[in-house]
């Protein structure tokens, strides 16, 4: 569609912008867009609002509580877990150990505090490292997307880069990785303001490189890659106070069963998960999938498929 790229279309582009912003009534296209927009102005039923608001308040309070759960002396911290699962190369397992170790150090107790603590740039890595776990070795059309993701990361467009990496994983048929990357994008996006912080960017960029290595699947593991992973992990750990134990999340937010994104141990290609750093799963409230978990609004009009 290069025919649209000419200079003479600049006017059209301006007009399009106005239409999309709802500032160009009068034209037929403007009317149509206004009608579409009006579909988003239908009020929600009062009782639905009340139900939902009550639910959201509860959820917000519970999550805030989980974030600030006081330390319980004497309780061993529960490192977050089962993070080994789908690794299928040596690189993966090295990464798994390094990341798991760093996360274990970094996490404030269980998974609860970690994800939710906004101040820490490493949060963004939480989703990413899960993506690593899931990605294994992928090949195919994903390489192009990874290229894009790299370029975006280099330009500092981090959420975009991560979302693009997610598409790469999607194309490489790594659904879990894709889902994890999407969650990561959400998290980064949530803290976008503050987390424009350089360290986060750099680490995301580095991790993207590693992800690329995975997806391009050249399988050779250089000592330098492992070294890089270690240094990331070291930085990651340094940013955070030593872990103190925290309450595991309350039952409302923490499905006792595994989230579906990381279905139980399923070694792929006969790879054994790294043995050292794979303790029992700590709950991950903010990652709980909507499907089949208590996170689904209980009293919505119809059941989930």
């Amino acid at each position, binding site marked *: *569609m290069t025919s649209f790229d000419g200079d003479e279309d600049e006017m059209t582009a301006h007009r*399009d912008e106005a239409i*999309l912003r709802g500032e160009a009534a009068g034209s*037929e*296209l403007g009317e*149509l*867009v206004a*009608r*579409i*927009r009006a*579909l*988003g*102005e*239908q*009020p*929600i039923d009062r009782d639905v*609002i009340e139900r*939902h*608001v*009550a639910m*959201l*308040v509860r*959820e*917000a309070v519970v*999550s*805030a509580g989980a974030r600030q759960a006081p330390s319980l002396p004497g309780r061993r911290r529960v490192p977050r877990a089962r993070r080994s699962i789908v690794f299928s190369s040596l690189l993966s397992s090295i990464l798994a150990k390094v990341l798991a170790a760093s996360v274990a150090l970094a996490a404030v107790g269980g998974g609860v505090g970690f*994800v*939710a603590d*906004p101040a820490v740039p490493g949060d963004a890595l939480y989703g990413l490292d899960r993506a690593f776990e899931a990605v294994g070795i992928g090949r195919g059309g994903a390489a192009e997307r990874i290229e*894009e993701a790299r370029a975006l990361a280099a330009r500092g*467009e981090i*959420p*975009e880069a991560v*979302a693009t*990496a*997610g*598409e790469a994983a999607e194309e490489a048929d790594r659904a879990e990785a894709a*889902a994890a990357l*999407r*969650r990561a*994008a*959400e*998290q980064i*996006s*949530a*803290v*976008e*303001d503050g*987390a424009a912080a350089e360290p986060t960017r750099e680490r995301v960029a580095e991790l993207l490189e590693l992800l690329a290595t995975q997806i391009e699947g050249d399988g050779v593991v250089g000592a330098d890659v492992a070294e890089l992973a270690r240094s990331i992990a070291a930085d990651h750990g340094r940013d955070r106070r030593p872990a103190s134990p925290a309450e595991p999340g309350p039952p409302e937010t923490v499905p006792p069963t595994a989230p579906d994104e990381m279905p139980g141990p399923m070694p792929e290609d006969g790879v054994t998960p790294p043995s050292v750093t794979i303790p029992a799963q700590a709950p991950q409230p903010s990652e709980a*999938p*909507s*499907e089949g978990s208590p*996170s*689904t*609004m209980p009293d*919505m*009009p*119809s059941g*989930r*498929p």
Partner: protein
Amino acid sequence: MTFDPWQSLLGAAQAGADWAWERIYTELAPKLRGYLVTRGAADPDGLVGDVFLQVARNIGTFRGDEDGFRSWVFMIAHHRLIDERRRRSRRPTEPLPDDPLALGTTESAETTAMVRIGDDEIRRLLEGLTSDQREVLLLRIFGDLTVEQVAAIVGKRPGAVKALQRRALRALERRITTGVPL
């Protein structure tokens, strides 16, 4: 200059104040619902709930202005749609994602929702777009998002997003002017 209404609203929501959640919900839920319905979500109401639940769960980590917040909420919605589609595509008996506007295949509350909201002609017109075009267009319209924000959500470059929205609008224009009845 120290008082920022949005920041105090956000702070209140983070602390679990119900008035704050009510404000946020009543402001955003209709738009979100419009987006989900026109994107062909199987259960738009349920999905609105899911998206907000995720928002409530992570709102403590959110830093940013109101624009950024809306963008974040729509990003979550976008991702939930992808999840839903993947689930549906695993079940061949259900309509496939490429036919997102094939409503009427479900007899549940959603159908009623669409009928209520319902605009058959708009639906038909949107069906004429590719799924990428629809996605970009609807994010811009319902989310009031900028090209850059949409780009971050869909994981494409801003240039690609611009191209998609341009094509979407031209396609709609063609259909309007060539007499596909509106």
